[in-house]
């Protein structure tokens, strides 16, 4: 029988995949994909906890996470397009202007 732990472990694995993506990606668009993976992992955990504790709060939080992800993508892609127009690249090493 599938319990809460199964869902949480899958969610943790997907979250770690997203974390690896955030750590190793140098392209800004691919970095966005990795953050989407992490947001989806958290949504799975919220839905699973909501199901196993018979509580709707988890689903509510998942809805707001989806809304936040949508607005993040809208603003972020606008910024990416502006960056690409200005510099012609989305590589973080090329975009870094501060030497530290």
């Amino acid at each position, binding site marked *: *029988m*599938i319990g*809460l*732990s199964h*869902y*949480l*472990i*899958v969610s*943790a*694995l997907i*979250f*770690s*995949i997203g*974390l*690896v*993506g955030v*750590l*190793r*990606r*140098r*392209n800004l*668009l*691919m970095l966005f*994909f*990795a953050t*989407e*993976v992490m947001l*989806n992992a958290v949504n*799975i955990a919220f*839905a*699973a906890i*909501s*199901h196993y*504790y*018979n*509580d*709707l*709060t988890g*689903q*509510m939080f*998942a*809805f*707001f996470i*989806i809304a*936040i992800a*949508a*607005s*993040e*993508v*809208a603003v972020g*892609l*606008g*910024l*990416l*397009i*502006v960056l*690409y*127009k200005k510099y*012609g690249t*989305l590589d973080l090493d090329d975009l870094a202007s501060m030497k530290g």
Partner: protein
Amino acid sequence: MFEMVAFYLFSVLTIGLFLVTVMSSNVLYAMTSLAAGMVLISGFFFILGADFLGVVQLVAYVGAIMALYSFAMMFFDATRDIKEKNTNPALVFLLGGLSAVVLVLMFAAPIHSDAIQALYPMHEGVGNAQDVGIVLFTKYLVPFEVAALMLLVAMIAGIILAGKKMDQSLTEDLSADDEILIQKDEK
């Protein structure tokens, strides 16, 4: 039994697809595997009885967000492979693996669940969409309206940021246009 088969199928497929998203050096492969993984995640929601959340996942994530990404892809050069300079890949995988182990250990630990009580319990015999609607429009009305306002602000920001100088070509050296012209000449 059915639930178990569906759970393991969805988990293996989702993890595999998201690994492709994270590891692939082609933007198109990464985007399509991300979209497919999101569809499968809505399958998780349907198994868990969160029907409305699953539909919202399909409509908002797969429908709206992936469409936004694919529109943005038209501004960037998506056919070329992305070259990324990884300074220390071993460290990245070590950190990712360590965080995975820590999270799995935390979630696999037994939960002392007697003290946890449902704040907004689900009702028997009432559909999930109805239940969600009642809680969303009574207890979470203000956050809902604030989220609507935030989406409006994000839409305006997206239009203003992406809409500037739409008439100019993004590729300054016009190399892409030249390639198209050369291909036309060859025909």
